[in-house]
């Protein structure tokens, strides 16, 4: 199943030059906007410059936000699955990661406490931890 695991590690590659271009565009548009304010303070309104600089700021922010979009998730990503083993005699429980060949009610190794037989009592998806 190695090929399945490898799919999850796919990440979106973003060109550094692209980020630099957008960043430069953002800085220049902010500078242009600042100049519009300065000229307005001196009593002159440069409408065309205002519209252009506001548009440039909006577009560059939008493009930067788009770069942060998470890679496409298809649902094939590996999930952590846990297996709980339980002693039928003393009730001793242990949880470990799922191994190929595990199934519920499968008889497994002896209990470390009472040496009686143990069974796999549950197999379930590990709850996702919120970061």
């Amino acid at each position: 199943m190695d090929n399945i695991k490898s799919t999850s590690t796919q990440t979106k590659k973003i060109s550094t030059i692209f980020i630099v271009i957008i960043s430069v565009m953002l800085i220049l548009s902010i500078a242009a906007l600042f100049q519009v304010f300065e000229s307005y303070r001196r009593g002159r309104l440069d409408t065309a410059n205002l519209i252009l600089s506001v548009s440039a700021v909006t577009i560059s922010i939008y493009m930067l936000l788009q770069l942060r979009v998470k890679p496409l998730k298809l649902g094939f990503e590996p999930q952590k699955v846990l297996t709980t083993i339980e002693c039928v005699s003393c009730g001793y429980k242990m949880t470990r990661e799922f191994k190929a060949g595990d199934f519920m009610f499968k008889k497994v190794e002896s209990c470390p406490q009472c040496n009686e037989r143990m069974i796999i009592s549950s197999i379930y998806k590990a709850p996702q931890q919120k970061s």
Partner: protein
Amino acid sequence: MASNMLLSVFQTLVPQDNIIGWIFQLIWIIVFVIFMFYGQRIQITIMLREIEGHLYKLKLMRDKGREIAISTIKELGHPSEDPTARVDRFLEHVDIGPVSLDPVGIIKRLEHLIDVRELRFKDEVRMLAPKADEVQMMNLTNVLEAALALNQIYKIIRHFYLQSKKTLSIYIVMQLQMILPMVMKECEAFASALRAFTLGQPIGDGVGPLVAAKLMWRSDKKREIAKDIVVGEVMIDGRKAYVLKAKGPGGNVGKPGEAIRQILEENEGKVAMIILVDAAQKLEGEKSGEVAEGVGVAIGGVGVEKFKVEEISAKFKVPLNAILIKEDIGDVVSIMKKEIINGAEDAIKRIKRLIHEKTKEGDTVIIAGIGNTMGIGQ
């Protein structure tokens, strides 16, 4: 200062005594005319673009599903030749339903077609993976079925997408756009299922068999009563209970209707109650693993097994009770969640309460755990 500036900008753009004002007036008129004549066309283009995005995702899912199916077959079955061509042929499999113009005997005909389909799938898997054992064979069949579902959904969505692009009919586009969120959810569930099937992990749909297995696993009297169905005899509160489930741990649903019919006939109809336990789709707002009780036959699928249980229970006048464990559509075919396992415990308590309240000591009851028993033994 900002409000003064905005006012100045507005005054610059609106009056027609300067060139910028004129340009803006003209732009507004052009935009208005474009939207008046081409508004719908623009809307269709935007909607088609959105559908295209989903279709691309569906294609990736379909391709990845196929890839996983092929690699799993190679890994488990060690075929002598490359299985790719045979898998591709399998993914184009088509089922033709029985004619319903004359509905008499349709259930029998449908059952026959399902049996033939199942046999065909098993034969195909046997040829694809000759070295796989029985359990792996069952799991591989499920893997291929999930890959087949992804392929068929992709092709249907692509068909309607291309048709709507060709006709530019907003009605086709809108219908497609409306159902796509549900379709995507279902496909993501199938993608998740594929992973679970390759490893033989229990899925949400297996909660019915899980309940049955929890009740019957200590029983010494276990036998195969119908095709791929195991029944165990246990005593619950002084009542004799026939607990049945599909034979695990391979991915299998069996024929529970046939098993219930046989048990009822063996006991000449002297059964006080039938309890069917199954997973049910939860409504938004409900919690996964919640348990509900009801009356009727809780068996999904095309209806053949449901029909059999309804028919035989009506013949012997046996009350039918249903215990439903609520799940999201995505949970049904993806790896079982802890909440659902907890729901199984709750369902057992309800079964015991039902038996205690509605039957007498010495009575016989049937408890059937319905669903895919992948990863669940007995």
